[in-house]
């Protein structure tokens, strides 16, 4: 069988897997951003225990493999009463630990993106704002964050691209993502190489589209930047 026939015969598997991959990546990015915002706030906090905790969190997450984190979350949180439900072929029992682990991972990177985005804003801007009598909060909201966001959003877009690829570890917990379905087709066809080519192309297409979106966004950001 050549690649085309494999795809024609088994495209349903690939597409179903792709859907899972996209859905999980989307959820993870949203949760990761929310959690990342909180971690970055802790990280930038003047209250030492908060900032130290955030630093430790970021160090641990960035210093250990994603797969190890996934298993630790899966086994550590096995007491959680995950709903025994299946949505779009995804067993929540298995997807939810994945979403938690990936979100926790993404949060660490997002937090660093936000922190470096804020710190990239010239410190004179904060000094000038405070000198006008603004509170720290006002200065952040009115002066610093509007400038930082231009550094932050494109980098978050790239984090999204990374997450789409990272979701491929979902299959280790038996979640029917693109890689998991890929392996089903491998078993059925005995043509691993072609199957992996097909999956690679699908990931590539997803990320090219995403990358285009991100760079269009960047152009628009640049336009408003004077």
């Amino acid at each position, binding site marked *: 069988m050549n690649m085309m026939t494999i795809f024609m015969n088994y495209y349903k598997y690939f597409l179903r897997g792709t859907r899972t991959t996209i859905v999980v990546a989307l959820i993870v990015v949203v949760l990761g951003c929310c959690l990342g915002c909180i971690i970055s706030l802790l990280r930038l906090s003047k209250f030492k225990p908060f900032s130290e905790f955030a630093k430790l969190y970021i160090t641990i997450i960035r210093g250990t493999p994603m797969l190890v984190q996934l298993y630790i979350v899966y086994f550590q949180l096995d007491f959680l009463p995950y709903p025994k439900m299946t949505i779009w072929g995804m067993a929540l029992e298995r997807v939810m630990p994945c979403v938690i682990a990936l979100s926790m991972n993404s949060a660490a990177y997002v937090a660093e993106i936000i922190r470096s985005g804020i710190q990239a804003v010239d410190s004179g801007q904060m000094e000038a*704002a405070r000198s006008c*009598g*603004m509170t720290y909060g006002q200065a952040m909201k*009115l002066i610093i964050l509007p400038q930082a966001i231009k550094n932050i959003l494109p980098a978050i877009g790239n984090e999204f691209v990374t997450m789409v690829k990272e979701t491929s570890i979902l299959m280790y917990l038996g979640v029917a993502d693109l890689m998991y379905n890929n392996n089903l087709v491998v078993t059925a066809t005995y043509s691993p190489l072609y199957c992996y080519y097909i999956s690679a192309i699908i990931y590539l297409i997803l990320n090219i589209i995403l990358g285009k979106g991100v760079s269009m966004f960047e152009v628009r950001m640049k336009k408003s930047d*004077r």
Partner: protein
Amino acid sequence: MTDKDVLFEIKGLEKSFGNLKVLKGIDEKICKGEVVVVIGPSGSGKSTFIRCLNLLEQPTGGQIIFEGEDITAKGFDVNKHREKVGMVFQQFNLFNNLSVIDNLCVPLINVKKMGEAEAKEAAMKLLHRVGLEDKANAFPSQLSGGQKQRIAIVRAMAMGPDVMLFDEPTSALDPEMVGEVLQVIKELADEGTTMVVVTHEMGFAQKVGTRVLFMDQGYIMEQGDPKSIFENPQNERTKDFLSKVINVI
């Protein structure tokens, strides 16, 4: 001078960064209507001194009394203080995300709690004063250094401060723009605005200053009226410094 006229009373002011002691005990009184010019070699603590006056740097020793209130005391409202103390930086520090008019209006609306229309009117008046009302809708990146600094000055003035602090306001400017900025500062001085100006412009110091402080190694080594400092300095370090900056050519 009566005590009522004293704006800043600085007693034994010290500031260290870690182990580095930058200000080693400064005693000084700054009165209403004075134009105090601070000169001295690089690294002598001039910026640190002026930044202590609006608490951009927190003093590590001594006291600063402003209008009868100890601003170094615990629980002191820093933001209220800064409304009364305008600051102009070497690097202008206009808000890059805001248009010129909003650079003036945003603090007025958010700090002074002015209405939008009122703030806009006040801002336009000030821009008119420095001849930049046609730049109201421009962004900082579209302006020359001299224009940026003139706007930074009126942004600080807009808050209606009791005193203006300038930290080397012309040092980042191309030579041909120094004049226009000094002119604005001179006009403010002529109107009786109290100010403290750190500068390397010795001509300006002599012409506009009512008093000159010479700082070196964390101390005010010598102070007096411009004429006596420039023509008849007493301290060896002052003489040495002035001979270097005045006879540069």
